[in-house]
């Protein structure tokens, strides 16, 4: 039994509990902090599963996200109290998700089990090739960077574009006024 598995299961239980609290608490600030904790849990899992690159990125991104969210939540009054819980809706949703869970769990038994990916066995897929030749071919000692910026650099161009778009989009959405004059506008006052 791989000891990492126990750590992993414990951390995943932590993440699940954290997200459940985030889902059910009435206080938005605690919900944000709980999701931050879930993200931090993921960063620790990254460390245990041999992904320090991810751990760094995850923790930094999570911190920034939580700072942004807390700033948004702190300065705004929230009077949404889910007093009248729509039990029918919640029940229906839970039932559907339960069905999903059963189907998904059943289907996932056909996957390559955790800890024994394809790359370990016969025909290790594309990954075994990266591991065998990455350093010689790209000169980068960090294989993740080698994949990210050399073998699959085109993906990374798309990713850089996404972050560019989201920032331009943020400027667009936060503009004070959308239209120059409202003669032909459709400001909806019905």
């Amino acid at each position, binding site marked *: 039994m791989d000891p990492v598995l126990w750590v992993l299961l414990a951390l995943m239980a932590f993440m699940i509990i954290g997200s459940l609290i985030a889902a059910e608490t009435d206080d938005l600030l605690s919900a944000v902090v709980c999701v931050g904790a879930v*993200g931090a849990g*993921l960063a620790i899992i990254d460390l245990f599963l*041999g992904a320090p690159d*991810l751990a760094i990125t*995850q923790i930094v991104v999570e911190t920034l996200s939580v700072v942004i969210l807390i700033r948004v939540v702190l300065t705004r009054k*929230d009077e949404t109290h889910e007093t009248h819980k729509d039990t029918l809706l919640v029940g229906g949703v839970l039932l559907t998700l339960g069905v999903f869970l059963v189907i998904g769990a059943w289907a996932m038994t056909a996957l390559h089990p955790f800890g024994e990916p394809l790359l370990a066995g016969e025909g290790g897929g594309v990954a075994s090739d*990266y591991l065998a030749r990455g350093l010689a071919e790209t000169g980068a000692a960090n294989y*993740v960077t080698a994949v990210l910026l050399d073998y699959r650099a085109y993906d990374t161009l798309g990713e850089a574009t996404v972050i560019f778009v989201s920032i331009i989009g943020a400027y667009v*959405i936060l503009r004070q006024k959308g239209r120059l004059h409202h003669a032909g506008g459709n400001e909806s006052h019905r």
Partner: protein
Amino acid sequence: MTFGTLPYVLALVLMLIGLYVIVAKKNIIKIILGVLILEHSINLFLLLQGYRHGGTAPIRAPGQLDTEAFAATSVDPLPQALILTSIVIGLGCLALMVCLAVRLYERFGTFDITRIRELRG
């Protein structure tokens, strides 16, 4: 169900919690948090694909292992590269969602999605 599938199923549970928050909650910030949870769970699921028992990080330091021994013990770098991309995409998405939430609050004075109803869906 064996132990080997259990982590996948737990990731699936996390995913469903995210979906539950998105579908059943009425607060914009809560919905955004649901999307974050969903993102985390999918990233986790991808990460689980790359691990092998006793695996080490796919980073080499001078004078440690020769290539063959390294290739036999390292975890899969590809899912990690995919997750890095997906984390960044998630951050971009979060940025847009937060901007929209701020803007909606300014226009409607509330985070309650049931009271933000200009359009009939």
